[in-house]
């Protein structure tokens, strides 16, 4: 059974059709890529699935339960972790607090425990601190744990964001342009990190990317989105040689 299943999802922003009859089947442990030119609606698809917008039509299921109408935080707690294209880090919070914050839905103490500093609350805080430190080590940012996340170098910020997404215990991880603004060196490092996450945490990954090298190397299946519609779907080899994809990316051959 598919882990994440999107059926015939359509979305309008006012009169603008942003996404048209979009389908996705993500099996456990797979890596699927979504490519397409700027403004094709890739991030909109992410936002629709993660609950930031509600699709006009269509159905979304994660592990058998319907996601339509749920708040983003509920969807996240159900097992959909994500990162953002423009790094939405919290300005005044330390790296450690970032990752601890993502454990919010796993906290077992209530509001009264927090008010009165109950023993249970302290125990839980210790537990998620240990968990967060472990994740920070996995992503090689543990040495920054007490610093403000926004003060780190760019590559490290990306890794903090990734650690934060992993702290929500996701079954599916959405990565929105994980290599945006990275040098080729950092890009190779990012590929290694994503491979590592994939193996170590056994998550399915759905990613948006512009750099074909990155997508071709990582993904088992690729969808190409143009003006809100999937024009091609297949293995990296198929996509690379698909004339429609080449047209969308490079323009028509017979230029006058």
């Amino acid at each position, binding site marked *: 059974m598919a882990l994440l299943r999107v059926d015939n999802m359509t979305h309008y922003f006012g009169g603008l059709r942003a996404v048209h009859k979009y389908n996705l089947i993500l099996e456990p442990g797979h890596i699927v890529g979504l490519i397409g030119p700027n403004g094709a609606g890739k991030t909109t698809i992410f936002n629709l699935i993660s609950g930031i917008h509600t699709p006009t039509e269509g159905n979304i299921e994660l592990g058998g339960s319907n996601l339509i109408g749920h708040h983003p*935080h509920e969807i*996240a707690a159900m097992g959909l972790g994500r990162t953002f294209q423009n790094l939405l880090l919290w300005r005044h*919070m330390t790296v450690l607090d970032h990752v601890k*914050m993502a454990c*919010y839905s796993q906290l077992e103490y209530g*509001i009264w425990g927090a008010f009165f*500093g109950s023993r249970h609350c302290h125990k839980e805080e210790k537990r998620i601190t240990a968990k967060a430190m472990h994740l920070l080590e996995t992503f090689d940012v543990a040495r920054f744990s007490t610093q403000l996340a926004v003060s780190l170098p760019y590559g490290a910020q990306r890794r903090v964001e990734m650690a934060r997404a992993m702290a929500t215990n996701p079954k599916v991880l959405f990565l929105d342009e994980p290599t945006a603004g990275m040098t080729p060196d950092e890009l190779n490092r990012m590929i290694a990190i994503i491979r590592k996450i994939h193996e170590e945490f056994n998550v399915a990954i759905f990613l948006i990317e512009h750099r074909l090298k990155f997508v071709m190397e990582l993904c088992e299946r690729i969808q190409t989105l143009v003006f809100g519609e999937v024009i091609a779907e297949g293995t990296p080899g198929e996509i690379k040689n698909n004339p429609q994809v080449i047209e969308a990316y490079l323009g028509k051959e017979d230029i006058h």
Partner: protein
Amino acid sequence: MNIENSTSQQDKKTIRARLKTFLAPVPLIGWLLGIFGAVLVEYFLGDLISYYFGLPKIPVLFGFLTVLKKPLLMPGTIGYLALVYGVPILVIAKTLQKPANRIADFLDRGPVTVAAFVHLGLLYGALHFWADLSDYRLLVLKLTMIAIMLTLSINIINGYMGEFSCSHPGFMALGAYTASAITLLLFTDDKQFGIALLPAALGPYLFPLALIAGGIAAALGALVIAIPSFRTRGDYLAIISLAFLFIVKSVIENLEFVGGPRGMSSQPHYSTLPVVFIVMVLCIWIINNFVRSTMGKALNAVRDNELAAEAMTVNTRKTKIITFMFGAFWAGVAGGLFAHVLRYVNPGSFGIQRLAEILAMVYFGGLNSVTGSIVGAVSINVLGEALRPLEIYKWIIIPLLLIVVMLVRPTGLISFTEFKPKELMKPRHNREEGA
């Protein structure tokens, strides 16, 4: 001590550094003992010392009032302050440094509650004897403690969650009126509610319940702002909260059974110094627990980026409701205490003037910081009282000071820090001693 020294004055810096190394090994309990000693000196010898310095009486508020009224008494006042406060504090703190460190060490090994009780007990003792010398001091002290609660509670909303709420006097009014109505109805014979329903002797014991009822009333009122906050933020929410303040004020003005514009008076004298002190300590403790927990840090996540907070499983709506209700609750409790300190409430005391005062305290002290709130509330409140002889100029000096602080430190004196009582009470051993 936080103010950066100007770089040009080299020798001054070394003096400061030397002073710092001289005083650094004194633990908090040492300072508290020093303050306690100084207060005792004033309590027993104050009259005598002030007589020898040519002062008409003991300077009530660190000599500000005396000096501002009669500038010629300045040398005498300074001498008095040095002899009564400066010397005993320094001498006791420094001579008792070693035993104080040993006590701190002992307390550090035990549970933190015991250590907190010892420290707070000393602090309370000092404040008690200090305030015992004049009723004016007592009043200022109580109002300052209430101001600390107000500043902390607005810091939850304006600082930790970053919404600009203007309705704090409204919450305070709800608390003040609810608590007053309960105590007047139950425990006193007064013109508004008739004879007492319960024996007056029960009053002081049930007073906490009246305060909590006031807090709950304020928290329910806060829903009026919390629910719109799901959809609006920033300036628009600020306008809504301002509207709430005016609604509360005019509703109270037009409700005849709580006295309308005349207000209510002759509340029983329940807000004694120990009561106010205990409630304030509880308030600081609970708020500090909350903002240091991950659940409390969710407020920061909502402030810094709501979208990211949602994506990281934070229930932002619940967080907003909790924040507004929690902040309003403590404002309501503070309002209840306030009404029983002045033993009089009227709608006029919960207007824009009060709002300006609360906002000044929180922004002066520092956003997102418990320490900052305490510092802000104490300094603005004490300054407001101390500069009273200047009359109208007071309202020029304090705002100017606020502007200067905002220029030098845009987020307030002490902002974005965590208040860690355990660290604060730790022994301060010298390096070689600690080894």
